[in-house]
């Protein structure tokens, strides 16, 4: 017998509230949480989801632009941190940042995989279509960056550094695709990315110091 419902009872999930952005090394609360995960305490996973689930989802959706794929990534990120919490090293940054980057990496993998091939083809076409003008490419990608702080940071870069970074990170393209789109040698794109990242490291490092 097939059972149906008039209205779903929504599953109770830990409330997804935005966690505070810690631009300095992780708080002691995050460390406690990570240690609880290391000790395989189940309540720690729900707390991690409560604190960081929204940000992780937002990161995944930012790359994939599809809710169902983004949810798959969120699931994978939290299951992975549950199964292997030792992957995180608190001396290297915040726990939330680690989870978000993990989500970014998985999202990029997914984007490039067979599952997302249809979307990727559309993106490639869009990338090719808009690559007649690097300016329009830049406008296109920069408008997807909602954080004023991050946009301001990227604006401090030279245009030839900013665009490859933005295309690679915020649209999930490999540097090879970026090189193709910008009609540049692959080595040139790589070195420009590195130069831009080095500048951002100085800038964001100064900001972090200013907060202390």
């Amino acid at each position, binding site marked *: 017998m097939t059972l149906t419902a008039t209205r779903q009872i929504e599953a109770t*999930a830990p409330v997804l509230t935005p966690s505070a952005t810690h631009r300095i090394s992780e708080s002691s609360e995050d460390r406690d949480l990570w240690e609880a995960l290391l000790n395989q305490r189940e309540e720690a996973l729900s707390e991690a989801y409560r604190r960081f689930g929204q940000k992780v989802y937002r990161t995944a959706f930012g790359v994939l632009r599809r809710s169902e794929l983004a*949810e798959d990534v969120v699931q994978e990120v939290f299951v992975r941190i549950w199964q292997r919490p030792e992957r995180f090293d608190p001396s290297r940054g915040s726990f939330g940042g680690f989870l978000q*980057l993990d989500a970014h990496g998985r999202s990029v993998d997914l984007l490039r995989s067979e599952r997302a091939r249809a979307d990727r083809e559309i993106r490639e076409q869009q990338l090719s279509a808009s690559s007649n003008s690097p300016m329009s490419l830049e406008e296109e990608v920069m408008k997807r960056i909602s954080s004023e702080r991050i946009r301001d940071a990227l604006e401090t870069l030279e245009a030839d550094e900013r665009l490859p970074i933005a295309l690679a990170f915020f649209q999930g393209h490999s540097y090879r695709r970026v090189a193709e789109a910008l009609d540049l040698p692959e080595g040139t794109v790589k070195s420009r990315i590195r130069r831009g990242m080095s500048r951002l490291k100085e800038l964001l490092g100064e900001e972090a110091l200013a907060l202390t």
Partner: protein
Amino acid sequence: MSNNLDDSVAVHALNALPEDESALVSVAIGFDDELNDEYESFRRVAAELVEGFSDVVPAASPQLWDRIELAAGLESSPGLPPADAARVETPERTAWRRLTPIIGSVAAVAVAISLTAGLLANRSEPDGLEALALASAELPGSLNVGLLDPTAGTTVAEVVVTTDGEGFIDGSALPTLAENRTYQLWAIVGDRVISVGLMGNRPEFTAFRVEGQLAGLAISEEVLGGVVVSEQDPVGVWLDQA
């Protein structure tokens, strides 16, 4: 692959290397401390950049946490306040502090049953659902009970649960709540209290699913979105007296 490994490390930090290069750079990073430090410094930059993703995104589905719980192989748990070794209590006590006195002492027995509380994804017309509930009530072994107001003793909701764990609740007798409030349904399985889900502020006939040996059901009134730990007195309770 570029001869300039340093450039590749920066690109790798942005997840922008193709798989073949990524694997090679990862190996190089593993063997060279200086390269590893450089990579980690760029990863910290990437961790800042990731904040740039749009705030305006569609909401994740409410079932996502259930999926994570299942995939991680966790026993269903209502969730607890932030982990703190000095303060964490056993789940059955923290999930519902108000319920415990009402149901009496709950033996703190390790739960052997792996419990899953899920949803039925399909929808139907109210009449169809009510018909299904009535039919389910006739099935052998089905539970057919009323949840009582603990104070007034009146029936506030009626529930049918089959032996397969398919449940129906008629909450239409419950008063309508404000838009920012919701009713939340809880199941007592063994000595654990778990959240089955949210009924909304104006519940009607709704389906749910719960597995395990059901020892009780309760409804609480909560803030919109529900809670992982209820501090409220239940508005309706049924306990298996067997």
